[in-house]
């Protein structure tokens, strides 16, 4: 109030006051308008934004695991599908009397102390509305028993979900792999809340793992209203899940199962290919785990039994097993000779033994074959013939053909762990060991021993390429129509010679006579093989220990067979590898197995009849034998068994790696020096 008069009088005071009170009133009104304006800004202009925030506060999503896509065979038959799964969860928030509820559940579901401990830990960690799993894969009786007691146990939620189902069981274990709950590491990586949703499982091995993205699908969601403390208020609308894609394979489920059963008690593998398209009709590795049981969770007994088994049921031998191919490469080597200008009629004298430097190389036939040419050397599997030729040409002349036939190659298949083996030559040895290639190396390689290592898939590809002259590449996904493979531009005359020789192996008095199919108009062509896993020392020879029966399982020879049918118009090719088979039991040997498996494609009834006859001598079908084995194993255990390792994925690949590396070192040992016992 800067007026001219400096002295304020009492009379002036009321005027000053009312002026200032007016200013004060205006100021208060202005503040009021600002506040009303601010409120309008929040509730009108920003309304959508805050509505959204309020909704996301209020509504909590519970994910519903999506139904996993099916895996079907080439005809649409299910290889992996989903079955209804009865499960019981606890909603911690609704739980009233934990002790009472748990003791009731224990008596109804026969929960073990282990289960109870896990449930208690999960309950302590759980957020209020997130379900904690009590038990899954319940049968209807148990599920019903829990369901009728629901009024006594608030908080217990029996639900129907879906669980993975493999109708063919162990027969497809190494094809499909199995599913399991996500590991902590996987969750760390993906950060997807679906991974920790009870009941959700993802692929852990095989196709289930490799095709995870296509099979998984999109989760549904249950929307629930929750308080700030996570207390469930009520359920809102539910969004259904989107199931994963169905994946169609080239596999023929019938043949796959047949081959698995036909392998019997062996540790071995069977691959069947369509020689026109490369479609994989069967890919079997036995023995195997039961993927149904693995997908439910791996028990400690089961784990111990499988990881200690010398038949390595945890390993997919088709892609992870590496073997010296033995004599099965002789037809391919014959082709290499033809390509190098060797006349198939040219003879070599086989006296049963060949001296190279200080090493002595034996033919499998003691007395020798006498004068022998290629037409006879392949069916008779004469070792000296190939020794001589390899000494003459050097293995560097064979290796390109071996590669052309698909050995040593990597195939783009949806399996994450594969071993590819070696096609050796002088350059490779120099690089790997820094040593020069020797004549002995060529001689060993010529009969499929030494540095030559292949997997059963490559053997099947070799058989397919030899039979059709096409550049067969194995395929397993039937996504698009398969075109016939490109030609390898081989000389038709050469193919004819090799095919005829392979026909003679089975049908012309050769070493594979046991594989004769006896089906009108369909002949099997093939080649037998034996892969040594040990050296036969001079001491062994003197003691007469050359027969496989005198050695323990892990030192016996591998038995192999590659073949195709019909011999005159090839349609299917196969490879059979029996680990440590040693040609001891006829109906478990490689040639007969291959013959029966391929005959399934031409005369199903006969094939099945022969299988039933054979299975009777083995103690029943796969499931029966596995169950018997499990019982025997359980009875033999007296010490408490430790739980399975936390990360079964890792541990499983350890087991496989160990098995694979013993195989490889055994093979190289057997061939490291001269004097192999040539395989027939």
């Amino acid at each position: 109030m800067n007026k001219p008069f400096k002295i304020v009088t009492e009379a002036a005071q009321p005027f000053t006051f009312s002026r200032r009170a007016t200013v004060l009133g205006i100021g208060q009104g202005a503040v009021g308008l600002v506040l009303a304006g601010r409120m309008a800004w929040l509730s009108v202009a920003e309304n959508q934004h805050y509505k959204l925030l309020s909704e996301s506060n209020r509504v909590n999503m519970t994910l519903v695991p999506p139904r996993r896509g099916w895996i079907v065979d080439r005809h649409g038959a299910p290889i992996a599908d989903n079955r209804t799964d009865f499960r019981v969860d606890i909603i911690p928030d609704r739980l009233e009397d934990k002790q009472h509820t748990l003791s009731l559940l224990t008596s109804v579901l026969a929960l073990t102390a282990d289960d109870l401990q896990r449930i208690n830990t999960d309950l302590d960690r759980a957020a209020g509305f997130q379900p904690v799993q009590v038990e899954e894969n319940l049968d209807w009786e148990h599920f019903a028993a829990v369901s009728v007691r629901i009024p006594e146990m608030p908080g217990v939620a029996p639900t129907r979900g879906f669980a993975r189902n493999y109708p063919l069981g162990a027969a497809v274990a190494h094809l499909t792999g199995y599913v399991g709950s996500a590991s902590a590491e996987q969750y760390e990586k993906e950060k997807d809340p679906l991974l920790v949703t009870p009941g959700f499982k993802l692929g852990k091995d095989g196709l289930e793992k490799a095709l995870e993205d296509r099979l998984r699908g999109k989760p549904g969601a249950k929307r629930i209203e929750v308080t700030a403390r996570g207390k469930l208020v009520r359920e809102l609308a539910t969004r259904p899940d989107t199931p994963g894609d169905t994946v169609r394979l080239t596999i023929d489920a019938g043949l796959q199962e047949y081959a698995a059963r036909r392998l019997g008690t062996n540790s071995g593998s069977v691959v069947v290919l369509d020689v026109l398209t490369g479609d994989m009709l069967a890919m079997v590795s036995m023995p195997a785990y039961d993927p149904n049981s693995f997908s439910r969770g791996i028990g400690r007994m089961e784990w111990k039994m499988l990881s200690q088994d010398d038949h390595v049921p945890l390993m997919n031998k088709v892609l992870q097993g590496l073997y010296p191919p033995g004599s099965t490469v002789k037809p391919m080597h014959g082709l290499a000779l033809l390509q190098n200008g060797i006349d198939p009629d040219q003879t070599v004298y086989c006296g049963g033994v060949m001296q190279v430097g200080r090493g002595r190389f034996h033919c499998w036939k003691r007395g020798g074959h006498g004068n022998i040419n290629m037409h006879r050397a392949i069916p008779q599997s004469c070792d000296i013939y190939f020794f001589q030729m390899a000494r003459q040409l050097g293995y560097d002349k064979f290796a390109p053909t071996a590669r052309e036939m698909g050995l040593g190659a990597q195939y783009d298949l949806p399996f994450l762990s594969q071993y590819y083996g070696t096609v050796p030559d002088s350059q490779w040895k120099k690089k790997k060991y820094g040593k020069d290639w020797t004549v002995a190396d060529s001689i060993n390689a010529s009969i499929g021993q030494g540095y030559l290592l292949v997997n059963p898939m490559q053997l099947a590809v070799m058989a397919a390429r030899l039979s059709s002259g096409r550049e067969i590449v194995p395929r397993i996904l039937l996504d698009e129509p398969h075109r016939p493979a490109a030609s390898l531009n081989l000389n038709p005359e050469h193919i004819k010679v090799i095919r005829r020789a392979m026909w003679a192996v089975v049908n012309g008095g050769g070493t594979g006579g046991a594989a004769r199919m006896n089906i009108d108009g369909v002949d099997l062509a093939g080649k037998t093989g034996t892969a040594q896993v040990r050296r036969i020392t001079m001491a062994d020879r003197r003691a007469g220990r050359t027969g496989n029966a005198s050695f323990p399982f892990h030192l016996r020879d591998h038995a192999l067979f590659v073949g195709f049918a019909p011999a005159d118009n090839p349609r299917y090719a196969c490879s059979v590898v029996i680990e440590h088979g040693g040609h001891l039991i006829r109906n478990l040997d490689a040639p007969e197995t291959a013959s029966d498996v391929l005959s399934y494609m031409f005369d199903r009834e006969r094939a099945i009849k022969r299988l039933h006859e054979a299975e009777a001598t083995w103690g029943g079908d796969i499931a029966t034998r596995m169950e018997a084995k499990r019982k025997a194993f359980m009875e033999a255990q007296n010490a408490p068994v430790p739980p399975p390792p936390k990360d079964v994925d890792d541990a499983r690949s350890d087991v496989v790696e160990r098995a694979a590396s013993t195989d490889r070192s055994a093979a190289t040992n057997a061939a490291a020096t001269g004097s192999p016992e040539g395989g027939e």
Partner: protein
Amino acid sequence: MTGPGLIPAPVAQLPWKIILLVFAIGAFGLVVLYSAASGSIDPWAKRQAITFFAFLTMAIIMSRFPESLWEKSAFPVYGGLVLLLILVELLGAVRGGAQRWLDLGVIRLQPSELMKPAIVLAMARFYALLPAGETRRFTAIWPAALLVGVPAGLVMLQPDLGTALMITFGGITIMFLAGIPLRLFIGGGLAVAIAIPIAFNTLLHDYQRKRVLIFLDPESDPLGAGYHISQSKIAIGSGGIFGKGFLHGTQSHLDYLPEGHTDFVFATMAEEWGLIGGCLLILAFFLVIRWGVNVGVRAQSRFSRLAAAGLATTIFFYVAINLAMVMGLAPVVGIPLPLVSYGGSAQLTIMLCLGMLMSIDRANRRASRW
């Protein structure tokens, strides 16, 4: 309101317009508290109703007291409260930890709360005593600064920033109304603008400093200390123009909004009643405050003028600071919304203010009738 006949004169003479307005605000507050308890009169609405009517009755009785009573008691009450503030401080020091109230057995007395109207009375009394000629001299300022500074400082020690600010604002308002030269307010404003950063770093406690920082950027810590402001803004913003409807607020019913029945009751209300409810409530408060200031304008004595306008402004500060706080325009300082927030202390203070205002109003009308 002076109709003859059936209604006895003392009742008819009551300022019914303002009583009804206050009653409407209080009743609306009870409705909001009923909803805040998820549609139950327990635990808040019922107790609030009892205290509300008790204090309203008290205010009406106060309106019958002569205005001179307030003038005479201004200094003794002020002095007593300063002593109590010191006592609280000493007890706090002995027991350890912050203390704001004295437990008198029957009630918990919070002297700082009562200081809000008391400072207004004391200041009004001081300027009423001050000769008019001294108004523009230094003698008009230093005693007033002391009157404000002592209680504000004591409250600051408790520590209670909100109340200390309200005491200071109350004092300054009286100084402004008393005719202290304007340049002092302008200069003072500048001084405060400079002092705030310094005070922020030296005077404020850590938790107060944090509150201020979070007020400046509440989203930086939405789950921690910024939670209050964030959730309050969500409640108000999601209410929209018409609100989510009575008993349909989710922020409050699902406990996302903290203190939804006390300091943040406005957010609880706004979520269910929307912009309409908020504006009506603001308008009602504006009418009450305007009435209070006009009581001052019409008052006969200098004390009554200053006291009435000051008391009305005290109510204004309650409302303005609380609303600014819940809408994210001011830091969280713990000032409740008068007549609506659950709790007795603030209600008592407001009703004391209203009672004195009605008493001055009554004196005005008797004077005008003469």
